[in-house]
């Protein structure tokens, strides 16, 4: 049927649009010449230069360290927060949730700028300038709301009587929390953790404003290089990132379909 063919062509066009730039990046990371216009031979030298570049390695380290740390800390604080907020009375809950949405809704430039104001303003009192630690604090700040938003629905789905049953059987509230509630909301916690990690790795704007001149993450590094023009080292970096992401997603997907053969599609 014509419709079917049209659909297929349209989809292919879209996928072409999505992947063409990336494929170009990958291909030209192996290009001997600097320019993207001509292909002058296969080489791995850009990769070699990439690994020798201490700036890049440091940026990579910062990116991963901050992503892991901020994801874990945000998940702990956020999960506790979700549990507490769930029990709040309506008005207090509304106020807290609205403030929680603020970093989510706000354009990241506004969040970044306001956090920068905070850090600079408090510098005389804390003696701490913009740098690794402030970037970490900023990442935790924008991660926590997403953790809360991931955990809250799971809390809402909880059967209230299960908690009461635990208390009835002699569990203290804390014991019931540990043994009954947390296992039940674990999927939400894990989602929140992964979400926080991803957002942190990908962030540019907030990091840009809340870090000092010495510290950069991958995004900032790419930005500063790209401003100066095309550089095949970035291509090499991009290729590595692409391959990593691809591998990760494939692994996650095969694990999901192995554990759960009837799983809905729609991998995130």
């Amino acid at each position, binding site marked *: 049927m014509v419709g079917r063919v049209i659909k297929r062509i349209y989809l292919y066009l879209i996928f072409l649009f999505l992947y063409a730039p990336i494929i170009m990046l990958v291909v030209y990371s192996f290009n001997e010449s600097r320019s993207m216009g001509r292909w002058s031979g296969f080489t791995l030298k850009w990769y070699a230069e990439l690994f020798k570049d201490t700036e890049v390695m440091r940026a990579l380290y910062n990116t991963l360290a901050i992503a892991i740390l901020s994801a874990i800390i945000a998940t702990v604080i956020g999960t506790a927060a979700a549990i507490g907020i769930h029990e709040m009375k309506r008005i207090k809950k509304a106020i807290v949730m609205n403030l929680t949405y603020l970093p989510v809704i706000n354009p990241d430039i506004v969040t970044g700028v306001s956090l920068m104001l905070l850090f600079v303003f408090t510098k005389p009192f804390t003696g701490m300038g913009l740098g690794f630690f402030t970037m970490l604090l900023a990442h935790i700040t924008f991660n926590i709301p997403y953790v809360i938003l991931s955990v809250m629905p799971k809390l809402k789905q909880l*059967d209230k*009587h*299960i908690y009461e*049953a*635990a208390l009835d059987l002699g569990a203290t*509230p804390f014991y019931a929390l540990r043994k009954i509630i947390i296992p*039940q909301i674990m999927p939400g916690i894990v989602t929140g953790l992964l979400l926080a990690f991803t957002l942190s790795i990908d962030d540019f704007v907030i990091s840009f404003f809340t870090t000092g001149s010495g510290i950069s993450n991958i995004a900032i590094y790419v930005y500063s290089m790209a401003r100066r023009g095309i550089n095949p080292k970035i291509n090499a970096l991009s290729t590595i990132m692409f391959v990593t992401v691809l591998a990760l997603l494939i692994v996650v997907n095969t694990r999901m379909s192995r554990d759960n053969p009837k799983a809905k599609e729609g991998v995130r």
Partner: protein
Amino acid sequence: MPEEPIIRLVNISKNFDGTEALKDINLYIRKNEFLTLLGPSGCGKTTTLRIIAGFERPDSGTVYFEGKDITNLPPYKRKVNTVFQRYALFPHMNVAENIAFGLRIKKLDNKTIERKVAEVLELVNLKGFEKRSVESLSGGQQQRVAIARALVNEPEVLLLDEPLGALDLKLRKGMQNELKRIQKMLGITFVYVTHDQEEALTMSDTIVVMKDGTIQQIGTPEMIYNEPKNAFVADFIGESNIIPGRMLKDKLVYFAGHEFECVDTGFEHNEEVDVVVRPEDIKLVPTGEGMLQGEVESVTFKGVHYEMIVRSEGINWMIHSTLMEPVGSRIGLRILPQDIHIMKKVAIK
């Protein structure tokens, strides 16, 4: 010899967002008794149960357990256990772990726990179900696991919140017998909540009829059935015909256009009263005999008896009888004095 009741509720009141759920409830529960809180939705029976369990705190009044004031004691410190309406089993644990939950908190050793779990599973007829997952169980099996989970902790009092509501009829009747058997065998006090009057009549030693946050009547099943204190109780328990009447003098009442002899005294001259007659107490007699004459409007076969509606003196009388008269036939009704129950008019709505 009056023994200290195991539970005493004194002047308990509870408000939810402005609605009065319980109004000054006074109740005592004896050891080893099977007591049922019976009433329609919203009457306060579940609230009462939850106050005993410790999930709600009364706005005023005191809760005594074995003579001690436990009003402010949290639920995990009380020697009562609850069976929830929808079982509330822990989905991430299997049957054995669910049951063992309370025992682990008491820090019993593994061997003892294993033994107790096996024992209680046998008690509820679920031998061998230890490793099963909760989702794989049927409603009736989940119910029994919930009961087992509560009982294994050897509570002094077991609270049951409409536990059989989600089961089909046959299963429910079977479980009613099971619960009664277990209660008698273990000698534990059961406090049972239901809106099903038949269930209450079948299982209880004592029934507490509640309505709108107050206790209407407390008594044995026979007492409640045969001598309901007011029209609400009479109407809620069993079927009844309730007719407005007037007490002419002691043992004489006027209703349905006739004077009837009855056995009740203590009312004022010409006092307006509610007259209650049970459908099974109205006798069918040939036309001409009997105080009332009427015409049969409908006949329904109910298996155990026929249910007939007979219209007489402007009233639709419900009659249960093993005899049957066809629709349209004229018939006489006779009511014996001892089957006429007089009760004071209560403002019920």
